[in-house]
């Protein structure tokens, strides 16, 4: 499954809300429809439906028909893309620190400058 090109602003905008993050978490199993999801939150069905629509547009969940039911399922690939971006910054600095350590360690092998 591909989501290309990922719209990061939309994705992070969608994930910037606690309810929507919770929906993403619950929808990993893909067992609940919007009505069932709505029961978990102190808000109207319409409000939850709106949250699901935002997640859907961001490519983070999709609606799937199972028999007569329509369930909301998390798009794992979409979430992985978001996660990769989040980790990128940390990885960038880890890489830098690793190279710094190599430079310092090289002192012992080379004559002093």
């Amino acid at each position, binding site marked *: 499954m591909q989501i290309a090109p990922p719209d*990061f*602003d939309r994705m*992070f*905008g969608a*994930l*910037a809300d*606690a309810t929507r*993050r*919770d929906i*993403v*978490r619950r929808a*990993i199993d893909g067992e609940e429809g919007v009505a069932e999801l709505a029961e978990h939150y102190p808000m109207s069905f319409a409000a939850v439906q709106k949250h699901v629509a935002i997640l859907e547009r961001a490519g983070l969940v999709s609606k799937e028909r199972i028999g007569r039911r329509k369930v909301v399922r*998390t798009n*794992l690939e979409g*979430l*992985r893309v*978001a*996660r990769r*971006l*989040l980790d990128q*910054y*940390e990885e*960038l*600095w*880890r*890489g*830098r*620190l*690793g*190279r*710094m*350590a190599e*430079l*310092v*360690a090289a*002192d012992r092998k080379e004559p002093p400058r």
Partner: protein
Amino acid sequence: MTVMDVRKDPQNLTMTLDAEFDAPADRVWELWSDPRQLERWWGPPTYPATVTSHDLREGGRVEYHMTGPKGDQPAGYWEITDAEPPHRLSFRDGFRDADGRPNTDMPVNEVNVTIAEVGDGRTRMSIESVFPDTAAMEQLLAMGMQEGLTQAVGQIDAILAGQAARA
């Protein structure tokens, strides 16, 4: 090097990395103060950095570009806001346009470096990165911090690992 601790603070939009080096503070400071050494660690191996201007004093600037595998040259600058060799360095890290001027559309990151000897000839360096107040970056960090998503990500990792094991 003993790596290291990574802390992310959503309230203050900061990420802090700690690392320990088997070297005195002066040596660790050189990683920043010597442009030729800086070039060897700032850019990833696929994007080596070239430092074209380097004044590591308060109010000074560092200018660099990196060269990608296809010849692309993203350019950046540091604006030094505090420098106390060999213990402290603070700067604003931003991107530059093709004409060399700061690119105001891109986020500017504030970086605070502290370097302190911890005995036995070892030095601890702490790099605090403060994310800009742009919505995207704020959301980026807030998202990673939230337990809900952390759990979701943990579950995803477990699911993916399970799929890989089955394959």
